[in-house]
């Protein structure tokens, strides 16, 4: 039981830095997971720290909204590398991201298409424009909300 925990933790801890660098597209970005109790990590907490590109080490609470979102996605993708669910479903994760970071996250998702299926819900053209297919949802006037669905593949069009 404990072996599985250590195995999982070590795998994710080894992967997280490279994933964060890839997401931030910046080699100076750093991410690390550290157990409070290195002998028996399952007994205490696990710390997570990110150093945003171009900045120095500081507590996670100092990060801005957009920086926290990128840090969260790095952890999510790192965990996925150990225990791959067949798909991701992400609801407006781009809300706090500026256009530069949206571009970085979208290209990371596109680069992993072979091993990872992603479904995103988004309001921003800069993000959903990078997808392979769009599912449009619209509502008809009625007593209560009635949603209708249109599916459109983007593969046929060039950028």
């Amino acid at each position, binding site marked *: 039981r404990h072996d599985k925990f250590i195995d999982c933790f070590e795998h994710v801890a080894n992967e997280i830095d490279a994933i964060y660098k890839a997401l931030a597209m910046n080699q100076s970005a750093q991410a690390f997971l550290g157990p409070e109790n290195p002998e028996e990590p399952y007994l205490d907490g696990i710390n997570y720290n990110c150093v945003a590109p171009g900045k120095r080490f500081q507590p996670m609470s100092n990060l801005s909204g957009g920086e926290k979102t990128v840090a969260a996605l790095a952890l999510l993708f790192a965990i996925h590398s150990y225990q791959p669910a067949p*798909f991701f479903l992400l609801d407006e994760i781009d*809300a706090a991201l500026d256009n530069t970071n949206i571009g970085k996250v979208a290209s990371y998702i596109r680069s992993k298409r072979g091993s990872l299926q992603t479904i*995103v819900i988004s309001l921003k053209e800069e993000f959903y424009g990078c997808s392979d297919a769009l599912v449009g949802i619209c509502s008809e006037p009625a*007593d209560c909300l009635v949603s209708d669905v249109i599916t459109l593949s983007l593969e046929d069009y060039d950028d």
Partner: protein
Amino acid sequence: AFLKYIDMENFKSYRGHHRIGPLKSFTAVVGPNGSGKSNFMDAVSFVMGEKTSLLRVKRLSDLIHGASINKPVSRNASVTATFILEDMTEKQFQRSVVGQSSEHRIDGQSVSISNYLAELEKLGINVKAKNFLVFQGAVESIAMKNPKERTALFEEIS
């Protein structure tokens, strides 16, 4: 495994039958505020075994189309997920609301909830691990958990 279709029947704002798909490697769901995008996420979460409290409703029967204005159109609602497996065969998981309880089927055969979740886990799906569904407004909190919560997360995944 690859998620190809999601079929919804009288689920939240989806009246009658709607099929979403074929889904691709990178699919985006778009639409105006209040049109039903997060209701689609609730449908996927529901069929993957997520508990009612995370689907923004108090009771299972609130998931039936029309329940939000106390005029449910039916006693039932259901969501079906169609996966394509490595060997190119299809596997369908269906969860439905019947009155106040929920039923589970795999490829049309009724199964127990524990069987259903075990089969999903074989595909790498475990909603308790919170490692593949990110609800609206929840992304930042993934990075800001406290150390103990993070240990519990690793506990669930391993």
